[in-house]
């Protein structure tokens, strides 16, 4: 998919584990894992807002657009 999730990069910058983030954001570890590995089909604004608030970053820091190479 052309949208790349850089959640792991931001988590590394903030030195935050997946468990900690999941607890603070209030979503399950499995859902956060789906998001981190790029398997998610969509993300709710409320989830994005919560993640950005906890990681103190902008949506663009987490999501990136890279066109697919054919």
């Amino acid at each position, binding site marked *: 998919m052309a949208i790349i999730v850089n959640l792991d990069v931001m988590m590394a910058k903030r030195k935050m584990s997946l468990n900690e983030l999941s607890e603070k954001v209030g*979503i399950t570890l499995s*859902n*956060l894992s*789906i*998001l981190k590995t790029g*398997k*998610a*089909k*969509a*993300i*709710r604004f409320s*989830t994005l807002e919560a993640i950005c608030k906890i990681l103190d970053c902008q949506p663009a820091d987490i999501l990136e657009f890279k066109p697919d190479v054919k």
Partner: protein
Amino acid sequence: MEIRITTKHILWVLYILAWIIFIGLSIEAGGILFNSFYTMFIKPMGAQFFWNKMDLSGLYAADKVYFIIVTVLMSIVAILKAILFYIIIRAIHHRKLDFTQPFNKALPRFISSLAWLAIGIGLFSSWGTNQSKILLAKGISIPDIQKMGFGGADVWFFMGVILIVIAQICKRGVEIQTENDLTI
């Protein structure tokens, strides 16, 4: 005391009904196959006392090829009907129909297989009906279409088409469900 009929109860009743129908259809298919084999290779008299008290002696005496065509069509229709009910039994037995999350991948596959089987039954029933009409036109005496199991070809076709449409809707439902599950 209030008696509540839940999905589990309905499925349980359906399961028993499907088993009864499946056994009946299997016996019918086996009976037709056995009688055909018996008439063809052991005793031609068997055509007179065919399965379900049918008298196919006129047909057998007229032409053996016609007899084979009709009995093969009867067997195919009976076998397809038995397979249809076997698929229903299997789906209920293995709990493929999950009512807590109904739009799973097994559902459209299950409905599609039922649809294609229904169309197959319709096709062979229609073929059998037409074959019977041709034989009657030739002056060969044959039993009633209903008795031979060729009745209701149009109903089977109708059911098959409706099930294909439902299967397509379910397929889309599965896509939406997957998308919903992967929305974080």
